[in-house]
């Protein structure tokens, strides 16, 4: 089955990642997936601005999600919470006790899958800022349509609107040359779904998203290598 933009069901839109766009931040990345684009900046590790947020044993991660226009509302707060937990999972926070690592995400354009795009941008920006990371994380959105086996990876806004259910899933992907290979493990880091799915449909969706996330992570790794050839 072919989609309106010519992709196959399991195909992810063209991905671009530009790094170091912002000069004032410690790290930045612009992640583009088709018509969806997010700009992420990372500041830190730096001094914690509020003593209430300070943690004596690890760095505090703060995420700000700014919509393309208008003020941030409850939905943005939900995104922030999800991205923050994912970032906390990959950052080796114990290296910087009492410090703050702030990730600011700005939606540049939104054509579906903005949460996944933002998460990928955040991860790429953390890499660019040389914040010590355990591993990478990659996120993919998926939609389930009423059509037979209608599982679409990385749906556009139109596809999301027409779908019976949508979901965004982040994984700790299997990295090329990674030490501890757990090939068959799912490594699901975070998930969020909306709409109605059977259990099997959900599991299929997660499995398909995992495949996509592995591809995205490989791309992210490759782009990092290109940006920092000395690191090899």
């Amino acid at each position, binding site marked *: 089955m072919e989609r309106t933009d010519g992709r196959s069901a399991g195909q992810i839109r063209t991905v671009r990642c530009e790094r170091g766009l912002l000069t004032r931040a410690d790290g930045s990345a612009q992640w583009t997936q088709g018509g969806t684009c997010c700009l992420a900046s990372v500041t830190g590790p730096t001094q914690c601005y509020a003593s209430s947020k300070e943690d004596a044993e690890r760095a505090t991660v703060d995420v700000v999600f700014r919509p393309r226009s208008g003020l941030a509302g409850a939905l943005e707060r939900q995104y922030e919470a999800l991205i923050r*937990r994912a970032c906390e*999972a990959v950052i080796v926070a114990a290296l910087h006790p009492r410090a703050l690592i702030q990730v600011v995400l700005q939606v540049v354009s939104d054509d579906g899958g903005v949460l996944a795009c933002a998460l990928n941008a955040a991860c790429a920006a953390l890499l660019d800022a040389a914040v010590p990371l355990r591993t990478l994380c990659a996120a993919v959105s998926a939609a389930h349509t009423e059509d037979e086996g209608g599982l679409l990876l990385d749906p556009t806004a139109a596809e999301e609107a027409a779908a019976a259910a949508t979901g965004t899933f982040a994984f700790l992907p299997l990295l090329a040359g990674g030490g501890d290979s757990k090939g068959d493990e*799912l490594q699901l880091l975070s998930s969020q779904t909306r709409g109605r799915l059977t259990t099997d449909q*959900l599991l299929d969706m997660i499995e398909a998203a995992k495949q996509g996330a592995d591809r995205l992570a490989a791309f992210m790794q490759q782009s990092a290598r290109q940006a920092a050839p000395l690191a090899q």
Partner: protein
Amino acid sequence: MAAAAAAGQVDADTFRRLYPDDYLRKFVEQGLRPDGRPLAAARPTSIGLGAVSTTDASALVKVGSTTALAGVKCEVVPALPEAPDAGRLVVQVEMAPLCSATTRPGRPSEGAQVLTEQLSALLGSVVDARQLCIDAGKVAWAVYVDIYVLDADGSLHDACLLAALAALSSLRLRAVSIDESGRVQTGAAAAAAQQQQQGERPAGQQERRLALSCQPVSLTCGLYRGRLLADPTAEEEPLLEAQATATLDESGAVLGFAAGGTAAVGQIVVVQCLEAAKMRGKEVRAMLQQALEQAGLAADADAS
């Protein structure tokens, strides 16, 4: 660090405060939780309907110590031009400052906003807003569901969703009448007005139940040292490696699967969570049905 504890030099309460992780681990290794539950058991749950008389419907839900109070208030409002044949369902979760040591008065906390967003989306798909229309293009019901967390002892999503579901299940939309001049009356006055106007075009509606497309129930599970803990408490939550909230309806369909944490989980865990949520849903729905029957508000009570 636990050496002092091993030597029996500190009492249990001190140990619990100083080494929460070791404390929990010792229990979980024995297949138990600090409150005496087995790992896969949810806490005792109660549903009280009609707790607040100033509401159109209300429900007080306790899951262990976690307490949520949902109050529903219905108002007749002008229909929105973009959706002339639909009313509005507005869901708001408020973490009252008294619910935990970290909530402060003032702006809603992130936790409250995340819950608001999750429950708005979920309940929006359960209540068809078109049934809230009174007179297309003119007036409609606005149903405000305000959920107050009174005691935040973990797994808030489950308690808040159950409170909202119980309140909405027991909701009766008041009778409405509209006279020639467009004046809207509700409640007993409307019922009386309708009696008088019999034979004419029935402007307005009888008292009626709200139709819910399904009964979603959620269960939060946490992953701790490779074991799955159902319905974690506030004490356990910060120690968990990952947490997942699965929301299923009575047919077993998944309406939401929200997971997050500092560790990744495998497929087995996902399946276990869904399975546990399915079982929990059956148990909770039976409880809700019983509560509704006791209050004389069960769905089939209307027929008799």
